[in-house]
């Protein structure tokens, strides 16, 4: 009897010691295959960079970080099941990532059910931090209201009177449309939307839409066509002289170097757009060092903007656990509310009520430079929500 009590006591101590040494597990999902990999892979690189840096400094709460990385396949159903597996099987302490808004919403739902903190690092749908907000979900990327507000402001500033509106027909496009329409009367009261078109997500053929926009007689386009959608549009519309007459004000980070660097001479005139981060232009003293480390990791000077978002997600997770002195989801969630940290794009604060970080974006016209083969954003203005 005595022995068994002693053995049990030893067992308890041993278990306690094992817990203290166990790594902190961060689950992360980005699209690593298929069309979303263009962004998911660099975002994951930023995520890994942050984990490596933290581990080099001793991890979080003195424990090493183990990053468990999964492919969300840009698919909400697949992301849900993978995230559940991360929580139940891999016992992760927190989940980060997502790229598509539809995936972000699905991951938020799992986080709510399983009571595990989820930091949405890229998905922009406003619903994540409004209608579908709950205790465990936080966002460190911009959202569709914020992006829509800036786009409406730019429409006013550029004195657009007849606007054609292009959005992709899914969560992000629909929510961005709402954000723009909400803000437009404030900035451009006289502007009229003469045509709204919604190509499908993943469309490669925009020929059914291009002639309609050209015939509508608008002086500007507000667009949410991101990445490959924008590139395909440019390729099909440019031969018709589309961009000679029409100002293209776009969300979806087509001002990022990923797009400009690939399109090079094919990048059209008259584009004003956004980017989270620009390797050639910083707004914070820490940016240059971050960019240099990223350049070393990725082995290219011209680093992709998505890495910063993956990076910031991990920094927030670490800061919250340090502040909570725990990995308990309830305590970490409380710690995230109102938490401020320094990031490569400046100091950010997560709003305690909306769970939304006040991250901004660079906005500006994409201009040619005599000494460069690709366009750059200049002047790039960092616009942060109030």
């Amino acid at each position, binding site marked *: 009897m005595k022995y068994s009590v002693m053995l049990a006591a030893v067992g308890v101590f041993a278990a306690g010691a094992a817990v203290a040494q166990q790594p902190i597990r961060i689950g992360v999902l980005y699209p690593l*295959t298929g069309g979303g990999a263009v962004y998911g892979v660099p975002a994951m690189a930023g995520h890994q960079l942050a984990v490596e840096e933290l581990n080099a400094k001793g991890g979080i709460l003195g424990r090493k970080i183990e990053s468990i990385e999964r492919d969300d396949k840009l698919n909400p159903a697949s992301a849900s099941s993978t995230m559940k597996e991360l929580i139940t099987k891999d016992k992760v302490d927190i989940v980060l990532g997502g790229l598509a808004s539809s995936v972000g919403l699905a991951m938020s739902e799992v986080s709510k059910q399983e009571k595990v903190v989820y930091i949405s690092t890229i998905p922009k749908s406003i619903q994540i931090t409004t209608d579908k907000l709950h205790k465990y979900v936080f966002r460190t990327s911009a959202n569709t209201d914020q992006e829509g507000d800036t786009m409406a402001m730019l429409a006013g500033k550029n004195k657009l009177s007849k606007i054609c509106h292009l959005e992709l027909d899914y969560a992000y496009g629909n929510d961005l449309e709402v954000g723009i329409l909400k803000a437009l009367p404030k900035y451009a009261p006289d502007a009229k939307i003469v045509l709204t078109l919604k190509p499908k997500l993943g469309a490669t053929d925009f020929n059914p839409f291009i002639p309609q926009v050209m015939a509508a007689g608008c002086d500007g386009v507000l667009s949410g066509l991101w990445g490959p959608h924008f590139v395909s549009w440019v390729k099909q519309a440019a031969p018709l002289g589309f961009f000679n007459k029409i100002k293209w004000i776009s969300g979806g980070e087509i001002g990022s170097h990923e797009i400009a660097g690939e399109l090079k001479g*094919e990048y059209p005139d008259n584009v004003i757009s956004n980017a989270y981060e620009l390797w050639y232009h910083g707004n914070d003293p820490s940016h240059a060092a971050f960019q240099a480390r990223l350049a070393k990791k990725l082995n290219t000077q011209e680093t992709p903007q998505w890495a910063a978002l993956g990076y910031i997600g991990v920094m927030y997770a670490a800061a919250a656990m340090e502040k909570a002195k725990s990995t308990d989801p309830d305590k970490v969630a409380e710690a995230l509310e109102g938490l401020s940290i320094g990031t490569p794009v400046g100091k950010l604060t997560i709003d305690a009520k909306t769970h939304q970080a006040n991250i901004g974006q660079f906005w500006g016209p994409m201009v040619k430079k005599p000494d460069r083969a690709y366009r750059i954003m200049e002047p790039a203005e960092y616009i942060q929500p109030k």
Partner: protein
Amino acid sequence: MSVTEWRVPSHEIASMTLTMFTLNAFYGLALAMNMFIIASGLNLIFGVLRVINFAHGMFYMFGAYITFTVAKSWGAPFFVGVLAAAAALGLIAFAIERLLLRHLYDKEHLMQLLFTFALVLLMSDAAKMIWGTDQYSVGYPPGMGGAIDLGFVVLPQYQLFLCAIGPLIAVAMWLLVDRTRWGRVVRAATQDREMLAALGVNVPMVYAAVFTIGSALAGVGGALAAPRIALVPGMDATIINECFIIVIIGGLGNMWGSFLGALAFGFVVQFGTVLAPNWQDVLPYLLMLVVLLIRPWGLLGRPEAGH
């Protein structure tokens, strides 16, 4: 969300002017021709080998990526890139057929399906290793990046070129299959390959050649699509569905059927998306449904004997 009220009734589209009609018809035709080139390869392979090649979309993607490497990274002329894509895909396909696929002809269809599906996964990983996950862009060939002004309508040059090359390939395939000795052998192979072998024809080599040509067509299709779209991982996924739809509409194994199927697909997608944008996702499937209700064996297909 009450977003839809903001949609402007498409009055300009409803009263489609001559200009808009011509432009849309032209775009529909260009899309059809690009799709025909790809689908005709799938159709040829099915017609002779009776193999449904799921990897055909992947061959298309490789065609586009190879064109990118040759024409952009190496700086060769665009059409050298197209030829390189055709040659490379032909070579890859020949190797696949000789080393692997030929063992599966006598197996059940499920084995063949699983095999071509496995090819999709393998090639998708290979593409990731070779080209990474970046997005790529191939420029228009010189002199084809603009448009021609016909007075009442302006037509982009490259799409005009696609409209010309599609029928050329169709006629070339028709001559090859219907007007040459080799074509007769191929057609005979679809009927009775044991008899053909007994007559002294090297049937396995006929099969290998058909698989090579069919796959090279996917490569050419991808190469020709490259200047007008963004090249991204996953670009194979939708194209394979669309090719199946075209081949099924036209009638499995029938080349002119695929041509008609591609035309139907091109016009329905182009005009349908303009007139009923909310239906853009289902339009091709709707087209297939309607055709199959009226002609279950496709436009130019024939009901299979014994069924």
